[in-house]
């Protein structure tokens, strides 16, 4: 019984520790962190990475897990290829969204859609990490163990309807994004973990098609 109580106390205390790990950055730390990220982001011409996406809905017993590969080429070519548990790719290219859904191809023109243009910019920005735009977001900065965390709250009301908050987690050493978390509400979010990142490998434009 006593061991159980100790275990319980231990869990609570370590829980406190965990939340205490998220420490606000000082102004000097923010400036140096932003500079590190911008230096790296500027060097990124292409980027490929594997990703695992966890969709968390409060009422589900388990997160919904999908995974695949993401390819980015500057300035704004972006493709997400879902490979498991289904084949689905979505490509952002020249104001168009190209979709390949298990072989079924379609295209959506987003040229005139401001909201899609915004979301697109946001996705590209969150992958490269370069989205420290104070005009668009209220941004706050935190330190974690071996990582940095930036939280973005959209200022635009329309965008806010879709996304309440975006959290980007950066590897401290590499100053690149390792996790993107899109919060729809406090209970529901999408968490995307990026791994096996390859920077500036040669990627042909022809990859970005459906």
């Amino acid at each position: 019984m006593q061991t159980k109580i100790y275990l319980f106390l231990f869990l609570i205390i370590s829980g406190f520790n965990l939340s205490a790990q998220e420490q606000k950055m000082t102004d000097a730390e923010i400036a140096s962190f932003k500079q590190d990220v911008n230096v790296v982001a500027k060097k990124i011409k292409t980027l490929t990475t594997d990703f695992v996406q966890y969709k968390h809905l409060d009422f589900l017993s388990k997160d919904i897990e999908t995974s695949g590969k993401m390819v980015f080429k500057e300035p704004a070519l972006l493709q997400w290829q879902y490979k498991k548990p289904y084949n689905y790719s979505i490509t952002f290219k020249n104001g168009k969204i190209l979709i390949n859904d298990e072989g079924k191809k379609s295209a959506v023109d987003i040229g005139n859609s401001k909201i899609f243009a915004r979301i697109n910019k946001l996705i590209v920005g969150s992958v490269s990490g370069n989205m420290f735009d104070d005009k668009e977001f209220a941004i706050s900065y935190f330190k974690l163990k071996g990582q940095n965390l930036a939280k973005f709250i959209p200022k635009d009301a329309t965008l806010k309807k879709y996304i309440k908050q975006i959290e980007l987690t950066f590897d401290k050493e590499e100053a690149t994004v390792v996790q993107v978390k899109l919060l729809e509400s406090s209970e529901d979010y999408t968490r995307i973990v990026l791994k096996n990142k390859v920077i500036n490998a040669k990627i042909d434009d022809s990859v970005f098609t459906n």
Partner: protein
Amino acid sequence: MQKSTIQFLLINCFLAIVLISCGSVTKKYTPKKLDKTSYTVPYFSDSKTDYVYKTNISVYGNELSGIFIAKKINDTTHRIVFTTEFGNKLMDFEISDTDFKVNSIVSELDRKILINTLKEDFRLLLKKEYLIQEQFENESDDIYKSADGKRDNYIFISKKDQILEKIVHASQTKEKFTLFFSSENNIFAEKIQIIHQNIKLKIELNYFKSE
């Protein structure tokens, strides 16, 4: 005299047409003695299971795809969420036999006619218990008729392995929409199609296992 004969013929013709169409939903089937008074649908009934399906919706030539999630949250109610592949929530409903609540819906899809159609579709999809009034059969299935307000549901159970294969929602004269199920074990439906007969709407659900 001649005028009234014509009228009489017209009325007769009209009646004949009405009678023929009245029988149209069941006329293909042979009546049979009732072997049960109720039927319990096995799919979507486990409160511990997250029912997650890749979804394709085709509506008047437009394609929409995403993820359909259903979960039984208490004895009477299911929560239904439809998201994009990216995870953005497009719709979030709570639905039971008698209640319906929209938790959220993106403004692009916030149309009364669409919400009402989906409400009808999903209510039938998640309905657990059917009271049976009549029974029919065809070559492959036993068919149970269950009253649903002014309309009826026809439940098709395969004679071969007793698996629920489809449910037809129909008025007295016309089929409105049909749910097709593919299930290996009659506990779980791996593939579901909802096809409307009166509007161009088709919803296809393919179960996927989260890895």
